[in-house]
């Protein structure tokens, strides 16, 4: 066994990693928000459509130059050596749903960044998280010069379920982005307690 030969025995406390998904329309400020709170410069990993997009048996051995690659940007906040929170920005285009599934699988919760100039851009994200029962908050990114709306107006325009938090934020600002993440974790906790009570009685 390879572990027997290891110089570094790996007996440590269990590690816990959690993830929050940052979604929203193209240019809404997803990567900006990740960058605002991540302790590492946001990283980018890529997935190619020919690999993950279809269940084709690609055994021809020829490098495909036409492959579309989809970038996923993410960051990390480490609370201590055992506990870290990853923030994943969703790929901008809705046609990459399979990648959304990959990122959202088991997520603690999600942020949908809304740009009030293009509010309809976040409909697919809202729909996605509602269908999958993933707790999410709406973060209205207050771009300079964009019209300011009250949170009630945004909630009504998006036809949100009652209880879905709507916050105003500045995705570039660390404190603001932090408050959005706190709202996600608190919502996830509340929903979890509510489910536990409903199932337990």
């Amino acid at each position, binding site marked *: 066994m*390879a*572990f027997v030969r290891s110089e570094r025995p790996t007996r440590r406390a269990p590690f816990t990693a959690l993830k929050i998904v940052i979604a929203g329309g193209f240019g809404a400020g997803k990567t900006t928000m990740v960058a605002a709170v991540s302790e590492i410069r946001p990283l980018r990993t890529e997935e190619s459509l020919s690999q993950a997009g279809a269940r084709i048996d*690609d055994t021809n051995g020829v490098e495909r130059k036409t492959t579309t690659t989809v970038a996923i940007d*993410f960051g990390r906040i480490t*609370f201590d050596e055992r506990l870290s929170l990853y923030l994943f920005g969703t790929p901008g285009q809705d046609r990459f749903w399979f990648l959304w599934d990959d990122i959202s699988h088991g997520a603690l919760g999600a942020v949908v960044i809304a740009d009030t100039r293009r509010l309809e851009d976040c409909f697919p994200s809202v729909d996605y998280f509602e269908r999958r029962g993933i707790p999410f908050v709406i973060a209205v990114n207050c771009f300079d010069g964009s019209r300011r709306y009250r949170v009630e107006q945004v909630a009504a325009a998006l036809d949100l379920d009652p209880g879905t938090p709507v916050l105003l934020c500045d995705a570039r600002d660390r404190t603001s982005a932090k408050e959005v993440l706190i709202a996600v974790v608190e919502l996830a*906790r509340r929903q979890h307690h509510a489910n536990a009570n409903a199932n337990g009685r």
Partner: protein
Amino acid sequence: MSETGRWYGDESGPMVRLYALTKGRARPVGEYLDVIALVLAGTRPEYDLTLSPEQATILELCRDRALSVAEVAARAGLPLNVARILIADLLDAGHVRVTQPNPPGRLPNDQILREVLDGLRAL
């Protein structure tokens, strides 16, 4: 390497080169590795000369601290699913340990969530 000419599953053995992986297996077989599954190396790459350079890189990256699958992919410059395949092979060969996150619908315990909230507030 297999004598049967097959390149996937158990037949591929512990030593599989990247070109073979990308040709032969589009998706990892076996357990689904979450993007935040944490990978920790238990072996130093110099102990196993049959490792591909990419696998050696992964072991180096995860030597001192557990890194998520996504972070391994990004830092090794590999597409996500290629990194997943290589990590799965390293796992099969006993070179890494992988800690999967909680399955969907199961939150971590409340103590951990409180730690996350406290940690976020302290940022």
